[in-house]
């Protein structure tokens, strides 16, 4: 009797080991598929023309053989006084836009999440429902009119757009996020009412209560919102291209496509293209690995779709 039991136990364990091996193999395969495009992008950026065109493709290059010319070309090859890929100009613009929109967004988000979570007023639920409904509307609908509004405000002109006009056009329309309001409101709501009433008895004003109690308590959520929002500027593509009259006002995504084609031969310089892609991807990955926990927790809790 006990022999049978031991046998079963063994069989069960063996089965478990085999299924674990299969699972690990499967997950490793997925992990490799996820990593390959990054690897290939980085590897290609260090290859010379001949190495890029090698058949079969070269799968590995020892670091000592890395060729940096694709990167140096991006900065040193100039056309009309501009580098081939003015990465640092784009980076500066992107960081600036990121800072400004994030500051604006976090202010409007905190203030309105507070009103929706803590204050009682007529029409609160109706207004909140209307806000949520706007999330269903594709942004493309707004863009057509928003471009006209930018024109009316004098922030866009083909001939004499200033840097600050371009910055205004790229930031002011993006200082609102219903999703973050929804997310922060949830966090605010978890703060016990008793704290609020106690503060009221002590004569603390609403605003002081928000500053001294709610914001510190909700800090992890706010930090997550800040990081996710700041990363958003990296993907902005169409709007910056529409509202800027000059290349030097644009953001990292805009410089990526179209360039890197050899004008005399018409062929794409994949090495340079990948070097630029690496430059654009790296800051994002650095931010990700620095704030990995906050980002992953924030995305999984709020369900923010990129």
């Amino acid at each position, binding site marked *: 009797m006990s022999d049978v039991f031991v046998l079963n136990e063994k069989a069960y364990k063996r089965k478990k080991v085999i299924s674990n091996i299969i699972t690990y193999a499967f997950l490793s395969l997925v*992990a490799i598929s996820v990593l390959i495009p990054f690897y290939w*992008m980085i590897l290609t950026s260090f290859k010379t023309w001949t190495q890029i065109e090698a058949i079969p493709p070269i799968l590995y290059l020892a670091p000592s053989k890395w060729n940096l010319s694709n990167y140096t070309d991006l900065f040193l090859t100039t056309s009309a006084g501009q580098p081939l890929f003015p990465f640092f100009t784009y980076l500066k613009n992107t960081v600036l836009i990121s800072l400004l929109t994030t500051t604006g967004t976090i202010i409007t988000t905190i203030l309105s999440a507070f009103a929706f979570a803590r204050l009682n007023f007529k029409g*609160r639920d109706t207004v909140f429902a209307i806000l949520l409904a706007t999330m269903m509307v*594709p942004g493309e609908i*707004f863009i057509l*009119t928003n471009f006209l509004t930018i024109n009316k405000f004098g922030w866009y002109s083909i001939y004499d757009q200033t840097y600050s006009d371009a910055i205004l056009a790229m930031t*002011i329309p993006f200082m609102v996020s219903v999703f973050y309001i929804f997310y922060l409101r949830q966090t605010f709501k978890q703060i016990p009412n008793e704290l609020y009433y106690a503060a009221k008895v002590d004569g603390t004003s609403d605003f002081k209560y928000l500053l001294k109690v709610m914001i510190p308590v909700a800090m992890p959520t706010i930090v997550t919102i800040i990081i996710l929002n700041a990363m958003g500027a990296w993907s902005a593509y169409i709007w910056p291209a529409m509202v800027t009259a000059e290349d030097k006002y644009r953001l990292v995504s805009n410089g990526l496509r179209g360039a890197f084609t050899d004008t005399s031969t018409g062929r794409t310089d994949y090495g340079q293209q990948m070097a630029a*892609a690496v430059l654009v*991807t790296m800051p994002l990955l650095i931010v990700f690995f620095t704030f990995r926990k906050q980002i992953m927790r924030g995305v999984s809790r709020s*369900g923010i779709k990129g």
Partner: protein
Amino acid sequence: METRNNWKAWLYLAPLLILMGIWIFYPLINAFIISVYENYLPLANNGAGQATGYTLQNFVRILNDQLFWKALGNTFVIALISVPVSIILALVISVALKSIPKLTGFFQTVFFLPYVTNAIAIGMAFAFMFHQNYGLFNYILSWFGLDPVNWIGGTSSWWAQMSALLIFTVWSGLAFKILVFTSGLQNIDKQYYDAAKIDSASKWTVFRRITVPLLSPLILYISITSMIGALKAYNSVIGLFGEELGAQPYSMITIVAFVYKFRSSYTDVGYISYAAAAAIILFVITVIFSLIQGAVSRKRVHY
């Protein structure tokens, strides 16, 4: 005390409402108005705009536009294939992730990487991987004795381009779904699985009878958001194909790309009305898809 809060609350909401009024509510209403303008010239009269009247012709013209139907077809194919495929894959991966004792955090981080990348940068990397002669995909195919495919080259077929686009779309969409599903799985009460173990239920039965039903609210949420996302596909096309929107011009055009095609046509009579009408059609399609999914869920989702 509560009534005194009234005007104060609006004060807290003021920055939000002003900004939303200018950049969301007004343009939303205006899009509907623009879409029915006749001969609309948005920048005429010093930016006040001018039109000769109202008409439904913009919608009629769109419905007679071959390119629009192409955009619609491409968008539907992207949405109807990439969404179910990536949801099923993400589910399987998440369940696998949950069943292993070690390295969960490592795999989770790796799987999340595509979420934090720039769609255009990584799209370009994919474009190069799909290169007919020097690309990695064809090289891998050759290991299995398969002939190289002309994925995205100048003479590539529609299906080859679409497959490349779908592979890229699924690859980028998995990250978010895996993360949401794994955190959903953590919240499933362990006793269900223990009960299944006692009944010695097979893995497939457990997956079908426990995991999927208990995750169904999340699966619904993810399928609605990814469907909306897929209907708005654009950056992935730009990343993979550039501004040409395909290996042949416009061969991979999507509805959003169709709308944006007119973005530099503000000085041409009627074009912006045309774009607005297309954007409204996209909006309506999005709403219809969400309603269908909502209706299906009422029957299938276990809350």
